[in-house]
Structures are given as structure tokens and as C-alpha cells.
């Protein structure tokens, strides 16, 4: 791919959600650039990931750990496994810098996670920063803002 079209950017977001829903986590990890971070703020409109707590601010080591743990023989909180489901609205393409090869999308989603008899739903906005590297779109950073980020939650075990 040279410069991606708006449609190609949008397809990327849909495909990423599908990977998570189908549990193709290793493939999902391969979308990431090595210095990327998955950020889920704790505070509404939080600006700083470092000096206040977030729900998640994970580097590739942590994301790899998270994914490998899901399949561990002694990962008791995943016996039985959780499943998840994203329903996404058509992403907005907020930034298209073709010269730099950097792109930003903004996507509203409903995320559902289930295990045993429990199921919960989160409404969220995902901000994806994408980068074109060697002709392929990669995930440079992802920020997930939960609508109710300040609420008390039980376990959120997969990735909204």
C-alpha cells in the first residue's frame, strides 16, 4: 500500500475489532509497533498517563504477557475463558498525514465481555494512531476512553 485511502483506514479498525472478538490475540499483537502503548484512562478526559493512575497503560511487554497469560495452564481466572464482542460505529478519520504516513481515527464502540453466567457492556471511544510502515498499516498507539471510566468494575479480562 502507498498512501492508504480512508476506506482502508476504516477497514483496519474493523479488522482489529474482529481479531479481538475471535480471540486471534497473537495476530493482534503483530499489528503493533514495538514502542506502542495501549492506554485506558481512569479519569474522564485524562491527559497524563504517567503521574496519575490509569486502568491500563501497557507497553508491548505487558501486552504480550497479557495475551500469553490468557492461554496459561494455570490461569484460573480464564477457566473457563472469557469471550468478547465489539459493535463499532463507522470510524471518523480525524487525521491523515500522508507525508508522514500517520493517521488518527476515532471510533465509538459498545464492548461486551462474558464469562460463565456474567455479561457486562462498556460504551467507549477508541482513538487509534496508525502508521504506514513498509507498505502496511500498523498500530502506533491506542487509547480507549470508557464512558463510565470512573465507575467501579469487576474484572475486565479481555481488551475493549
Amino acid at each position, binding site marked *: 500500500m502507498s498512501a492508504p485511502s480512508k476506506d482502508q483506514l476504516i477497514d483496519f479498525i474493523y479488522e482489529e475489532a474482529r481479531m479481538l472478538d475471535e480471540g486471534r490475540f497473537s495476530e493482534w499483537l503483530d499489528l503493533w509497533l514495538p514502542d506502542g502503548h495501549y492506554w485506558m484512562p*481512569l*479519569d474522564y478526559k485524562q491527559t497524563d498517563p504517567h503521574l496519575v493512575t490509569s486502568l*491500563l497503560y501497557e507497553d508491548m*511487554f505487558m501486552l504480550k*504477557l497479557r495475551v500469553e497469560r490468557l492461554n*496459561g495452564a494455570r490461569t*484460573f481466572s480464564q477457566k473457563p475463558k472469557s469471550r468478547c464482542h465489539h459493535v463499532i460505529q463507522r470510524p471518523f478519520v480525524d487525521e491523515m498525514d500522508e507525508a508522514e504516513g500517520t493517521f488518527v481515527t476515532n471510533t465509538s464502540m459498545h464492548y461486551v465481555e462474558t464469562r460463565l453466567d456474567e455479561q457486562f457492556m462498556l460504551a467507549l471511544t477508541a482513538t487509534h494512531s496508525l502508521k504506514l510502515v513498509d507498505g502496511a498499516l500498523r498500530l502506533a498507539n491506542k487509547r480507549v476512553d470508557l464512558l463510565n471510566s*470512573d465507575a467501579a468494575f469487576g*474484572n475486565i479480562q479481555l481488551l475493549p
Partner: protein
Amino acid sequence: MAPYQSPKLTVQDIAGMVQGHQVHRDVYTSEKVYRLEMRNLFTNTWVFVGHESQTPKKGDYYTTQIGDQPVIQVRHSDGEVKVLNNRCPHKGTKIAIDREGNTGKFFRCPYHAWSFKTDGCLLAIPLKKGYEDTGLHQTENVKGIKPVGAVYNHRGFIFARLAEEGIGFEEFFGDSLSSIDNMVDRSPEGRLEVAGPPLRYMHKCNWKMLVENQTDTCHPMVAHESSAGTAVKIWDELGNPEPRPPAMQIIAPFMSPYEFFEDMGIRTWPNGHGHTGVNMSIHSDYSAIPGYFEAMTQAYGEDRAKEILDENRHNTIYFPSIMVKGPIQQLRNFIPLGPNKTLVESYIYRLVGAPDELLSRTAMYNRMINAPTSIVGHDDLEMYERAQEGLMSNGLEWVNLQRLFEGNEDFSSEAVENGTTERQMRNQFDAWSRFMTSTMEGHAEAAE
């Protein structure tokens, strides 16, 4: 036929649930026990409310709970922090429902505009002539928003006793305050500031399981193998790159062997307080942060600075319901919402005058270990919830607390023991039983 009346629990019933080496499962599952805990235990003891930096300016308030009691922490016009029952004396409406805010010079109930000074005293009632000759002035309601029984600010940490009479703050906590002191002393200015809102994590289990888990040193290498063990495995596969990824500093030590936790040591203090990490702890091996030791030396002198930083206490329980991690500047508040429901709020604090990197590591610790999205948190919650469900089994009604039990333990003075002992759990139940029953009907007879 008259409706079935469930019998009231007596002093003997409560005392009989705690037998030194074991406790009856009803302490975790019974609604009646939970009600008594709220009525007695959380009323007679000193319970954490908040940090003074959550309400720095006059009129600043913050709402929380002491047990099941809604309260407001507020900075009064004289600069003192007050703790008030969050209930209008008129109809019961909560005076404040947002988590924090500033009320100015007075609270005004949104329902009928009764207004109160920030120490709770009644200021005004609209159309007051309607109460002339009604006897309102003889009621308790006319005094205003009722403050809790007693409040104590220890180095910025606000504790309250709901009961008007009872054990004093210093007598209740004794030398256990050394853990809070060490945490505060780690600031070159001797001062902490809350850093952002707490993580809020809902647990479908009894609050005491969480408190016990804080000094349960035989679970990390088992329950957390999935996260800490996998972290070590990934790091090995990567060829052990240095500097170690943050997860290796923070999560991997959970895989330390039993001997490590034995050597860590456990100290118990009277009234249910205690801590792990007497000699060293999983927090001992964090990398040094440039500029911090220098700032500490400048503030305290080298010897004292070393003494403060050489203390690496792991988890300190302030009975009944908080845990403090001095080297991390974290406080976890276990708020009981029912026999099988607990809200855990995990706060972090900035060491005023220390480099930002420390707070950054603290925030990382909080989210890696104690968030609803944390893999380590998932490991723990799974165990608590399975226990809460398993305890419903009638096949066996007792929960065992016997590790390194020596029989006839005396908790009335400080003790230091092997780091894998369950003595601190037994210490908590000793205090539990005493503060549950001390104000119960029939306590005097039972004691004879």
C-alpha cells in the same frame, strides 16, 4: 401463623465463631454477621476516611463511607478537617452526592434549603416561623448535620470513630503508626498529596478475605503464577534484556520462593494491626531514582535518610479495613457493601519534594496490580469469588488459619515471626471478636 423470626446473634455466638486456629464460615457469608459488623465493629474502631489533601481548601469536601455509613470529609472554616454524617437532619437527604467538590462557607440541603456550617451546625431554616412552639428546638435534628463520634488526623491521614465513646486513636493504633510515618517520611518535605482519583474495583466477596490476603504470603507464587510466572518466562525468552521491563520489577517478584517470604517476616501489633516485610520485601529491589536520595539526604541527613529508605515494609494492615504500602505510597481501602460485596479503592500519593519518577512508578504499580483490568487483580479476585461460593458448602463449616499456630496466642503485645505465619489473620480475628462484642448486649455477663 406468625412469621418466622430469625434469632438474634448473641455475644456467645460471635465469640464462638472465632476459635484461634479456625473461624466459622458465617463470618464471611452471614447477613446477620455483616449487620453486626456495621453496627459494632465499624462503629467502635477507628476507620480510615481520606487524606487531608483531598480537601485542601476551606469548603472542600469529599464523600465516602465508614462501613455502610455515608459520610462527608470537609475542610471547615477554621482549617480543621471535619467528618459529618452525610444526611440532612430534616428528611435524611444526602447533603452531598458528588464524590468531591467545594461547598463554600456552608452546606445547603437541596431538598428544603436547610443550611449548615461546614462543621455541621445549623445555620438557617427557611420560613422558620412554621416551627414556632412546635418543640423543634428540643429535638436532635435542630442541631444540624451530626458529626461522627471522633476524628483524628495522623500526618494527613484522616480516621474517624463513629461511636462517641470508645478506644482512643493512639491506644487503638499504637506502634502500627510507624508504617504511615515511614511512608510520609519518604517525602523530603514530610508530606504526601493524593495523586488523582482511586482505582475502584468491585469484589463479589466478603471484605475480610481481602484484608487477610494482604498478609497471605503463601499465595503469590501459586495464584499469581499465571501472571508473574509468565512474565519471567517471556523475559527469559527475550534473552533477559536489561534494563528489565517495568513488569519484571513490579510483577515478577510475586514468583519469589517460599523461603523468600519466610525470611520477609511478619509483625503483629495489638488490635488487629500488622505487616509483612519486617526484614525486606518484594519492594526492596526497585531501581534507584536519580536525585531522590540526594533530596532525602539534604532534608534529613544521610543517616536518617538511609534509615527511612532501608525500611521496606510490604503490606501494613490498619485493622479493620485498610492496607498501606509505604515504599509504594499506596493505600487500599476495603469498603464493605454487604456480606459478599466489597468495593476496593486504591489510592496513590505523591511524595512532595521527590522526583516525578517515583510517582510514575507508584501509578504503574497501582494499575499493574490493583486495577479491574490488572492481570494480577484477576488472579486474586478469582480466588476470593471462588472462596465466597465454596463457603456456602455445608460439607465443612470451618475455615483454617493454622499455619505456624502455637496455641493460646497472646496478641496484646507486638510480635515478629516467620513471614509465612497466619498469625496476622488470627490477630485480626482476635480484634474482630473483641470490637464486635464490646458494645453488644450481654457483653458484661459473657465476660464474667
